[in-house]
């Protein structure tokens, strides 16, 4: 296999065993980015000098007999809403360009760098993470490596495309309504949205404070697991971060699925979709022997509550700039924030009340099952600029429709892995969903699917 497609674990093993050097590996990644980024428009900042310095330090540690960590010399990149010391955190906006550089790395960036990973740059996204297509009017659209005329998904589109294009093996993103899972599915890579509170958001520009999650995208399950294990755990500096003890998932990867109660989401999660989206979920279900079909109660309303909550929280966060310089926002973001700013507060309070009732209802569903299977997106990657998605059941706004199946799970903070299911004309993803803080179950299932070839990354043509 070409070094470009090695996963992070394989790269780190080679570097720790001195079969490769961190400096050469980082240099090769920077060369690929220099050669290929113009095609995809993933990176908004490349940190070449810093990356070479860090890589030389990793090589020096190995030469002196010290272990730099499980990600020794592995290049990675992050959505440009994560703080990077010395770099201005754009969050996809033009407005933030005027901000001073961040003083320190975000919690998760720091965690991966401490484990020996080499940060090579910051990645494109929808403005303020409010979108599903990374059609950013300030920095241009990120293009899908599988078809350059199509969107990479969003809002972590730069992250999905950079991993799928082989520019880095691992990238970080955030997910409010699907912003890790949608680009993972559309670009054909694995994506983890952990339980709300599982991973610190310290040093991350928020979109919707009560809903935002941080997570990794990768080309293998073991990379996703390693990133999770390094990043999760308490952070007193993030009030949303759980105080639960760490629960690494790497030890359970090989445990298989024996004894797990796995069901397939029916009803809402089979409606208004391309047949291939349903087929991808059915392939996964068949491989898992999942014959039980369950309905997620009030999924439609769960999505509606999320629409209100995220819009209002985002509008509140940006109200000062909406007043002072509305013309500097991306049009797609601005109009939705302005509309939400005008909404009566009681509407938001009612949505938060519904959210709690919905959470309790779905929790009861997980009394009788361990893992739920559902498509990640109802449609494959839309073309850039595509407004509508026409399906057998009707015509839908393409961008918003991408979040149909992801939003009902993130609004109640459930952990979800989106796995890529190969064999279709364009990448397809399937969600594995569990009860809060049961990431270990998801990793057992994802690893099983990967071992059977049902879930796999396939390089772009």
């Amino acid at each position, binding site marked *: 296999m070409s070094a470009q497609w090695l996963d992070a674990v394989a790269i780190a093993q080679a570097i720790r065993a001195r079969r490769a050097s961190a400096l050469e590996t980082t240099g090769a990644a920077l060369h690929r980015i220099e050669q290929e980024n113009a095609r995809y428009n993933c990176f908004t900042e490349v940190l070449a000098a810093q990356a070479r310095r860090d890589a030389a330090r990793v090589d020096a540690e190995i030469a002196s007999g010290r272990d730099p960590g499980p990600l020794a010399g592995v290049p990675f990149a992050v959505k440009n809403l994560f703080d990077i010391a010395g770099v201005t955190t754009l969050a996809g906006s033009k407005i933030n360009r005027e901000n001073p550089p961040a003083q320190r790395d975000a919690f998760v960036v720091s965690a991966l760098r401490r484990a020996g990973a080499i940060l090579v740059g910051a990645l494109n996204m929808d403005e303020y993470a409010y979108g599903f297509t990374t059609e950013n009017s300030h920095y241009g659209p990120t293009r899908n490596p599988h078809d350059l005329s199509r969107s990479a998904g969003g809002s972590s589109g730069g992250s999905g495309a950079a991993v799928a294009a082989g520019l880095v093996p691992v990238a970080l993103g955030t997910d409010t309504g699907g912003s890790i899972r949608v680009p993972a599915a559309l670009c054909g890579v694995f994506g983890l949205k952990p339980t709300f509170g599982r991973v610190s958001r310290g040093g991350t520009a928020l979109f919707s404070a*009560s809903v935002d999650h941080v997570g990794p995208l990768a080309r293998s399950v073991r990379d996703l697991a390693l990133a999770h294990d390094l990043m999760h755990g308490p952070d007193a500096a993030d*009030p949303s971060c759980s105080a639960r003890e760490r629960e690494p998932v790497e030890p359970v990867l090989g445990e298989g699925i024996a004894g797990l109660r796995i069901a397939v989401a029916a009803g809402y999660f089979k409606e208004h979709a391309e047949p291939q989206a349903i087929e991808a979920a059915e392939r996964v279900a068949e491989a898992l022997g999942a014959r039980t079909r369950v309905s997620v109660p*009030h999924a*439609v*309303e769960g999505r*509606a*509550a999320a*629409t*209100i909550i995220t*819009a209002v929280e985002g509008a509140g966060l940006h*109200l000062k700039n*909406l*007043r002072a310089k*509305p*013309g500097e926002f991306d*049009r797609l973001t*601005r*109009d*939705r924030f*302005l*509309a*939400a*700013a*005008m*909404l009566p507060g009681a*509407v938001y*309070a*009612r*949505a*938060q*009340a*519904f*959210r*709690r*009732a*919905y*959470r309790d209802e779905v929790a009861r569903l997980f009394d009788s099952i361990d893992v739920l299977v559902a498509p990640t997106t109802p449609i494959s990657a839309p073309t850039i600029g595509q407004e509508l998605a026409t399906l057998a059941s009707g015509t839908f706004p393409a961008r918003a429709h991408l979040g149909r199946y992801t939003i009902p799970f993130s609004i109640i903070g459930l952990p979800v892995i989106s796995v890529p299911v190969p064999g279709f004309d364009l990448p397809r993803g399937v969600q594995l969903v569990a009860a809060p803080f049961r990431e270990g179950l998801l990793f057992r299932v994802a690893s099983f699917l990967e071992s059977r070839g049902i879930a796999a990354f396939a390089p772009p043509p």
Partner: protein
Amino acid sequence: MPPLPDSAALARYVAEAEKALGLEIDPAWRPAIAEHYRRLLEAHELLESSGVDLSAVEPAVRFEP
């Protein structure tokens, strides 16, 4: 679900809300804002007609003194 305000009423509301919030909105943006506002109201009405007694539930916003 009760009928939502018509587009003229929404446009009037947007214009009034602009003033109340101290926003300076390009008139060309108003139709799109009104459309997004309509979608938010639709979402709200979905919740109100869900059959869930929202008055009996504490909103899911955490405050720790």
